[in-house]
């Protein structure tokens, strides 16, 4: 008896599974394995030296740190935006709703140039922050700003439908039982949207790790300070150091995969609890 294959009223399980695996292989697995094969050209010590050189280590810290911070920021403010869009009616709501998707559609280079122009020392926002001693453009903060910009829609678009599905009756029921609005939010609404929020966070985080275009303009790309890992890979490629580039890519892939796996497990666990 096989527990793997279950009889279903829907036909074509074998065909669908086969197609899924083929598709995943062509689009994801085979290109990724090429990265590992290319890396295998290096000896273990060469690989280790490339992947853990101080400049590369600093770039990991910046990429993952700024991505995490940006995704976290988006989780908080994206939730707020989704809340406002679902719960309130105001003039121009449709326009605001459409604006949310703009970071999806905008070529990332355009976003990078626009953000740099704004946050540079002589930009609209930059000139206000400069006297306060805050430099955004060409610092890690700039990287964080760019990654926050591109990640926002992921959180809003995953939380929004779940929030729309929450019946007002649930809140009324909680109020009738004596709960304050804060208690209702913390005990009823938040647990319900948490899995979706986590998904949005994971998507924003993953997107930020791989982001290149919008960051390189605003980052300034100073080694050890504001240099992201994807840029380092490009630099290596430009020097025809393919093995070195793929070595860094392998490390990045592995870390990303582990992080996303953890988030997925967390999600599975919270979804099971909330059913």
């Amino acid at each position: 008896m096989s527990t793997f294959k279950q009889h279903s009223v829907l036909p074509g399980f074998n065909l669908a599974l086969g197609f899924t695996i083929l598709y995943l292989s062509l689009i994801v697995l085979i290109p990724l394995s090429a990265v590992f094969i290319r890396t295998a050209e290096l000896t273990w010590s060469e690989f280790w030296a490339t992947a853990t050189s101080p400049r590369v280590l600093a770039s990991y810290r910046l990429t993952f740190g700024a991505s995490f911070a940006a995704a976290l920021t988006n989780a908080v403010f994206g939730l707020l935006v989704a809340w406002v869009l679902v719960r309130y009616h105001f003039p121009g709501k449709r326009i605001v709703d459409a604006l949310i998707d703009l970071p999806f559609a905008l070529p990332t280079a355009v976003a990078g140039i626009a953000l740099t122009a704004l946050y540079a020392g002589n930009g609209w926002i930059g000139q206000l922050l400069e006297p306060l001693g805050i430099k955004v453009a060409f610092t890690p903060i700039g990287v964080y700003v760019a990654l926050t910009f591109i990640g926002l829609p992921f959180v809003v678009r995953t939380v929004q439908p779940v929030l729309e599905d929450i019946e007002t009756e649930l809140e009324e029921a909680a109020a009738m039982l004596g709960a304050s609005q804060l208690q209702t939010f913390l005990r009823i609404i938040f647990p319900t949207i948490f899995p979706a929020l986590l998904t949005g966070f994971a998507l924003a985080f993953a997107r930020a790790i791989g982001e290149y275009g919008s960051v390189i303009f605003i980052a300034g790309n100073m080694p050890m300070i504001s240099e992201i890992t994807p840029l380092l890979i490009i630099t290596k490629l430009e020097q025809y150091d393919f093995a070195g580039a793929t070595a860094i890519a392998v490390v990045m892939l592995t870390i990303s995969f582990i992080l996303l796996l953890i988030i997925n497990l967390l999600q599975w666990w919270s979804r099971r609890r909330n059913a």
Partner: protein
Amino acid sequence: MSIEIRHLSKQFGTFAALRDINLKIHSGELLALLGPSGSGKTTLLRVIAGLETADSGQVLFNNEDATSQHIRDRQVGFVFQHYALFRNMTIFENVAFGLRVRPRQNRLKDQEIHERVTNLLKLVQLDWLANRYPHQLSGGQRQRIALARALAVEPKVLLLDEPFGALDAKVRKELRTWLRRLHDDMHITSIFVTHDQEEALEVSDRVVVMNEGRIEQVGTPDEVYERPANPFVYEFLGHVNLFHGRVHQGRAWIGDVAIDAPEHAEAENLAAVAYVRPHDIEVDRAINGESALSAHVVHILSVGPVVRLELAHQDNQNKSLIQVEISKERFRDLQLVKGDQVFIKPRRLDLFPHQLH
């Protein structure tokens, strides 16, 4: 706790949901708000709960004005049609919710909460489901849990909005009798909204019949069924036959048939509508004594102890069939088959002069 409603009105845009409602609900009573959809019954319930604010008028709890009181301070339990259970909590935590969100100074100890919740779950006979989640329960079970949750905070008033509306017929009936028994044990002032007249008549102490934002009649189930105040209540409560005729000096005329109508002694040749319940019509094969209406049998439904006949009356203007209910014995005596000619006579009728439809 007694409730009094004074001159309550509420508009939704141009739609008048409630028009000058006045109502007294006695302490410990089980009251049904009955009406078709859009009659304002749910709005009235929600105003009493504090979930909706009225445009004008007052709601008094124990003679104290509660109109501006916050939902949390009203001590009202509310049961929703679609249960509104918290999906992310176990059954136990759902019932305990109202006790856990109390301000720290008057919150019960964990031990006491546990005891009270367990007792409530036993009361609704579902203590074995304490650790399940709402989605693992059937509709009937969910509604019983919703009731236990509402009772956990020891409300002074219990409000139920179409509590059995989403359940199938069998479960509805079970829960109905169960609710009646529960109310008899606890004597908590309860109001429930329903559009099902059978449910309202069977369960409640008193029925409030509503239509288009107004109260049409208030009374015990017997009163509203046997002595409907107006044509609307007549038509809304149970099957009824309409006859168009005239009333003149204490006699009603439907076709050639005359029936005594002493309460209309002063009427001078007025057009009138007569309402007759299906079981208040006599059926015979021949005219005995006085005149009777002639009709023929169109349909016979003989399942159960009561046989339902549908009769067509020759000169009935609106062409609608006449519904008649007779006992099985009488049906056997008459030996009726489809197409037979019969003579019918209203045994009892209610006349509403000038209420022409």
